[in-house]
């Protein structure tokens, strides 16, 4: 009887635990890439990173096969001017979400292969070891402008 009870408890544990874990995983929402204007070989990628887990995490890298290099940037005000600065990582605290959006954090993609169209695949790497691959649509000015005002 006791063995049977123990087995049931174990079975329930193994059934329920993965559900709890999967709920706590870091995820990416609404990724998009700005269509680079003709003649420009740089552009930016944006997204929202949600971390419902109990532990904080850090975004270390976002790469794309569409560009020669990529880096994490933040646009910040300096007096009345705007400057872009490289950041080593972007923190995503436990239970919070962080937006990479125009005028703030962004992934700078440099040395774009001649044309990016429709969508590109972004590979994200986190401090925790988590790796996420997402498909990001490539957006033209009207749609990109609409998205830019989303976060105001």
């Amino acid at each position, binding site marked *: 009887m006791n063995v049977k009870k123990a087995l049931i408890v174990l079975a329930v544990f193994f059934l329920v635990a993965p559900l709890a874990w999967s709920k706590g995983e870091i995820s990416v929402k609404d990724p998009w890439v*700005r269509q*680079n*204007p*003709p*003649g*420009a*070989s*740089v*552009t*930016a990628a944006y997204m929202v990173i949600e971390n419902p887990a109990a532990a904080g995490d850090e975004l270390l890298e976002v790469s794309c096969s569409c560009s020669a290099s990529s880096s994490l*940037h933040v*646009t910040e*005000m*300096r007096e*009345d*001017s*705007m*400057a*872009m600065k490289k950041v080593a990582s972007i923190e995503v605290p436990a239970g919070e979400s962080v937006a990479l959006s*125009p*005028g703030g954090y*962004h992934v*700078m*993609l440099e040395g774009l292969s001649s044309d990016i169209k429709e969508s590109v695949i972004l590979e994200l790497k986190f401090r925790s070891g988590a790796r996420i691959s997402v498909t990001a649509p490539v957006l033209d*000015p*009207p749609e*990109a*402008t609409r998205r*830019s*005002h989303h976060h*105001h």
Partner: protein
Amino acid sequence: MKRHYLVLTALALIALVWVAIFGFLGTDKGSFYGDEYPRPAFDFSLTDHQNREFSLSDHSGKVILLNFGFTNCPDVCPTTLGMLGEVLDLVGDEGAVALFITVDPERDTVAKLGVYVPFFHDRIIGLTGSQQEIKQVNDACGTFYSKEQGASESDYGVVHSPAVYLIDPGGEMMLRYPKEKLDPKKIAGDVKRLLL
């Protein structure tokens, strides 16, 4: 009793005066969305993205929206240009012109601006000139720009003003839209009011 009436009348009068003053200021100042930004009058001549000369004074009678940037800028400049394209669509009239003045004239040649700027709107005009000329326009707008070296000689960014400046149909600098006020609908509202 009579005293009370006097006090009440006096209070009512004071209230009326307050309403009159603030009501007046409210309708007069509060009606433009942009921040008031009067500056000494100025003019400039630069080269547009079709290799023609562009003089500010040739465009009096129009509302001019002026913005600084460079084509190698992936985040702020395209966001602002997309926003300006939307303003021009909303205004829907030849009475408004948007200018994109490069702060990176070394890399932003006429040819480069010629393919880059029309991507956002066919009525945005890209402008370039010498460093000296571009610095003068920045000075006139009360702002500045500076090169920031990156990893290599060819890798640099340009720190610059993200604001949009509005020059009224009389050719006077009038309003400034800082980064947090780049709302196309509200800017279009100001432009339409000035074109009435």
